[in-house]
């Protein structure tokens, strides 16, 4: 998306910074203007509004935000796994295969979608407690995914492959004959990861894969994912509310708020030089895993009711830097108004977008020092 796009503010003025947001090179998954509603009736809740996000090949992209901000919804909608009454109302989800062939996941028919699932793009779900079918042995559950896509593989071969996969995630292969209730939470989560890797997918979406686990287990799993990514070369979208965890593992971080992406930048940039007031606040509500200690502050207020959003910036009521224009126009992703920033990063905040502020007849305010750290 470009800031000169006529949609948001037609009278955009020239900016001092580079105007084009540099696209991610060699993307494997591009989500473009994805919109999602909850409810099929005349009065649905817009849980995602024109969200765009690009995942580069081999990249680990972190997706963070408070619960209810739509980060899981984004993952489920992009894979069309969102349960009723979820409804995708627009956008594209482009998957680029290794040979450069592009498909829009939202336009696939049922058979094509089934064939693409697990093969191209696999998901590790939140809460491994319920992600495994309680009445089947885990070997069978890994193998059935393989056999659904490779009918020529025999059950025996599929189970052998399952054993390899279990070893890959550090579980003894004799666990193949275990039922889910015989495994600990951490083991179940590893089984889910092993299962997701069964067909060597190019994209792995992980939805809060470590939330239900204790800290030691979290660490192990995160390290394991990083290690597997090195060896197998898949791309990852890692969803969590724990930003400090993302800094450990992600190359790039996108911060979501109220169904929109508000900041998208390299992991270290988000951590050291947040440009959006929400990112900054979010960082200050988690203790850093390493590095100097810093003061923890919460974020005042609570996320807005998505069904009651008017125009304007959804964060304005909780924002320390809000001004008059924030209630008039909802900011779009633009390059931050800070000299010398990485040209690939973007932020949706009116403090960084004087043109949009002028467009509604307000006087722009400068970027506060907290949001222009160098």
């Amino acid at each position: 998306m470009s800031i000169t796009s006529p949609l948001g503010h037609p009278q955009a003025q020239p900016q001092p910074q580079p105007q084009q947001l540099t696209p991610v090179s060699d993307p494997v998954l591009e989500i473009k203007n994805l919109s999602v509603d909850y409810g099929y009736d005349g009065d649905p809740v817009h849980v995602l509004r024109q969200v765009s996000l690009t995942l580069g090949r081999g990249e680990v992209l972190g997706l963070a935000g408070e619960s209810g901000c739509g980060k899981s919804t984004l993952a489920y909608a992009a894979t069309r796994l969102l349960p009723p009454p979820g409804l995708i109302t627009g956008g594209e989800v482009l998957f680029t295969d290794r040979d450069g062939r592009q498909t829009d996941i939202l336009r696939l028919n049922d058979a094509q979608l089934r064939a693409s699932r697990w093969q191209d793009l696999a998901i590790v779900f939140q809460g491994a407690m319920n992600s495994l079918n309680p009445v089947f042995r885990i070997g069978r559950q890994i193998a059935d995914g393989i056999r659904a896509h490779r009918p020529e593989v025999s059950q025996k071969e599929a189970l052998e492959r399952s054993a390899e996969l279990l070893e890959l995630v550090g579980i003894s292969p004799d666990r193949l004959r275990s039922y889910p209730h015989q495994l600990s939470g951490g083991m179940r989560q590893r089984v889910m990861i092993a299962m997701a890797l069964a067909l060597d997918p190019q994209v792995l979406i992980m939805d809060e894969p470590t939330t239900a686990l204790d800290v030691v287990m979290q660490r192990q799993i995160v390290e394991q994912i990083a290690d597997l990514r090195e060896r197998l070369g898949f791309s990852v979208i890692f969803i969590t509310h724990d930003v400090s965890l993302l800094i450990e593992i992600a190359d790039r971080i996108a911060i979501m708020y109220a169904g929109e992406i508000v900041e998208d930048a390299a992991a270290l940039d988000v951590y050291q030089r947040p440009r959006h007031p929400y990112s900054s606040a979010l960082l200050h509500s988690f203790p850093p895993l390493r590095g100097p200690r810093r003061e923890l502050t919460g974020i005042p207020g609570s996320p807005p009711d998505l069904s009651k959003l008017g125009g304007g910036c959804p964060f304005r009521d909780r924002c320390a830097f809000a001004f008059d224009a924030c209630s008039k126009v909802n900011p779009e992703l633009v390059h931050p108004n800070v000299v010398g920033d990485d040209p690939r990063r973007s932020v949706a905040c009116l403090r960084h977008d004087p043109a949009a502020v002028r467009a509604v007849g307000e006087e722009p305010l400068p970027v506060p020092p907290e949001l222009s750290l160098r």
Partner: protein
Amino acid sequence: MTIDTSIVEEGEELARPSQAPATGAVPAAPRRSSRGPRKFLFLRNSKAIAGMVILAFFFLIAIIGPWIAPYDPSARSDDILQPPSWEHWFGTTHLGQDVFSQILVGTRGVIVVGFVAGIVATTIGVIVGVIAGYVGGLGDETLSVLANVFLVIPQLPLIILIAGQLPTVGGVTVALVIAITGWAWGARVLRAQTLSLRRRDFVEAARANGERTWRIITAEILPNLTAIIAAGFVGTVAFAVLSLITLSFIGIGNTGEWNWGTVLYQAQSQLALQRGAWWWFVPAGLCIALLGMSLTLINFGIDEFVNPRLRSTGLNAKSLRQRGIRPRIGFTPVVYEAKEDRA
């Protein structure tokens, strides 16, 4: 999955005592279920409303039936085995009795037995279920086994066994026998729910505060069981009605009191089938079905109120089809109708 909003709703609604069904008029609230005053949600459920209306109708008949009946239901006349006519809406029996009057007069017996049995059985069920679930341990084991024993023992034969050996069987006796054999289902469900409530924070907090047990049960637990108790009550009434009618049909408890079952008993024993006198047994059966359906509908309403996942998606299938939406798991429907602007 966090994105499944219904789960959140479920928790909220369970924690919130439901409004008693008879609170009065249905408010003209918006149709959306996830917003607006939730306490009237039950009354906005069309199934529940339909059920309550039918039930109210039978209640009315139970009260005024004997007064508005055109004939004495036992009075014989010369119009023997007449098909329905203006004089006899539901025709006449082999003795020239008016079937319509029998049905009208018999409603009271059905309703009284159904509700007396329902109230008694529900009371036993609440006491056993809540105590078992709250006390836990050996007391729970004992009471659960007791309830399960009563569930497994076939109720109708047991009722027949008891009622068949009583010298005289009046309506209330039958109601009590039904209640004694029919409380177990409610107790079982209530026990499970009490057990899960007991582990909830607000109950734990009350216990930690040193609240007395009976106060916790009456003030913290019972209000949260309202919907389940109501469902159990409605279910027991339905069971009691069916049992009463079955008993009457096989000839137990026919001491001159009319009810729909005695009508069927006479029809069967006087070979109404073979004589082609369909009017003799069809109306009573339809009344039973209608009453039973009204109770089932009320229970559907309660079920959907307690477990929002069961709600049909609440919209008409036609408009969904027009928009090309087929709600299902695993394949989110895609429609390209989003507005272009972000705000």
